[in-house]
């Protein structure tokens, strides 16, 4: 059979019936809202009642003209509330039919075999990156297995000679020049404790002179804290500036 216009979606319709538990009252609640009494066919003791005369209805409120008894059998059929189930045709649901944020993780078949986003492109053929139940970030990246990676939480490269200047840094708010060869690294975000590992290096060009070795000032109680790290460069007992100081802090 030919259609004029769009071919109807495959569907079925059914008029819905509601049974009531009766009592000595005129007020009942409908399962589905209606506009008026004409949208209901109400039966009491199997006798159809006249709309607007025997009962009125609005929204989910059904009001009888006379109260029922608990022994009465009462039910209604929704005439204006035909329940229709429609299965949309295959490949017909677009993004506009979905409510924003309505696709839950339970509706996605995991694991995804491929994944990409603007900032992530997953081309691995096996597990290469994991965030474990303790929120540790684990990855392989040449290590040989997926294992927890420990991050450099702060770093800085600065010139401690002449006009002392920071070349570049990460999670460092400033470097304090405390005097010849003595510097304090101030962290932008504090460490959780002072058990972090500090890696220190100083270097210079050949023939420039002796820029000293990095040493910690252990006589200074504040040389290492959650918010800063103090060190000095010295030749013997004499502090000396260094032109290329590199520090990294691992935790």
């Amino acid at each position: 059979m030919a259609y004029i216009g769009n071919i109807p979606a495959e569907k079925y319709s059914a008029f819905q019936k509601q049974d009531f538990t009766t009592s000595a009252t005129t007020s009942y609640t409908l399962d589905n809202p209606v506009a008026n009494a004409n949208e209901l066919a109400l039966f009491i003791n199997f006798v159809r009642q006249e709309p607007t005369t025997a009962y009125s209805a609005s929204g989910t409120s059904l009001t009888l003209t006379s109260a029922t008894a608990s022994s009465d059998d009462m039910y209604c059929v929704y005439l204006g509330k035909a329940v229709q189930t429609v299965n949309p045709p295959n490949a017909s649901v677009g993004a506009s039919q979905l409510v924003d944020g309505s696709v839950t993780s339970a509706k996605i078949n995991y694991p995804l075999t491929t994944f990409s986003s603007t900032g992530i492109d997953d081309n691995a053929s096996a597990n290469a990156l994991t965030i474990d139940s303790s929120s540790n970030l684990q990855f392989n990246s040449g290590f040989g297995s997926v294992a927890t990676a420990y991050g450099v939480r702060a770093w800085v490269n600065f010139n401690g000679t002449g006009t002392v200047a920071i070349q570049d840094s990460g999670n460092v708010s400033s470097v304090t020049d405390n005097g010849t060869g003595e510097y304090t690294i101030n962290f932008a975000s504090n460490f959780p404790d002072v058990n972090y590992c500090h890696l220190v290096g100083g270097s210079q060009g050949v023939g420039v002179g002796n820029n000293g070795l990095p040493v910690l000032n252990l006589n200074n109680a504040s040389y290492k804290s959650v918010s800063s790290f103090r060190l000095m460069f010295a030749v013997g007992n004499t502090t000396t500036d260094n032109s290329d100081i590199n520090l990294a802090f691992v935790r």
Partner: protein
Amino acid sequence: MDKRIIYKNDDGTISIIIPANCGLTVEQIAQKDVPTGKSYKIVNVSEISSDRTFRNAWTIDDAQLTDGVGE
């Protein structure tokens, strides 16, 4: 940054803070990294000598530390 923050230590020597590009303003860095209770002065980098021969002898008059106090 082209600014430096100066404060005076208890032994009379001075410390000079070199701010990093960390998203904080020089004022915020001063309040954060200057030791608590110590007055500081924010100056242009050009006001700091690049000759550090006598760096440990540098000093400053307390009256010049007028830009704030470390928190």
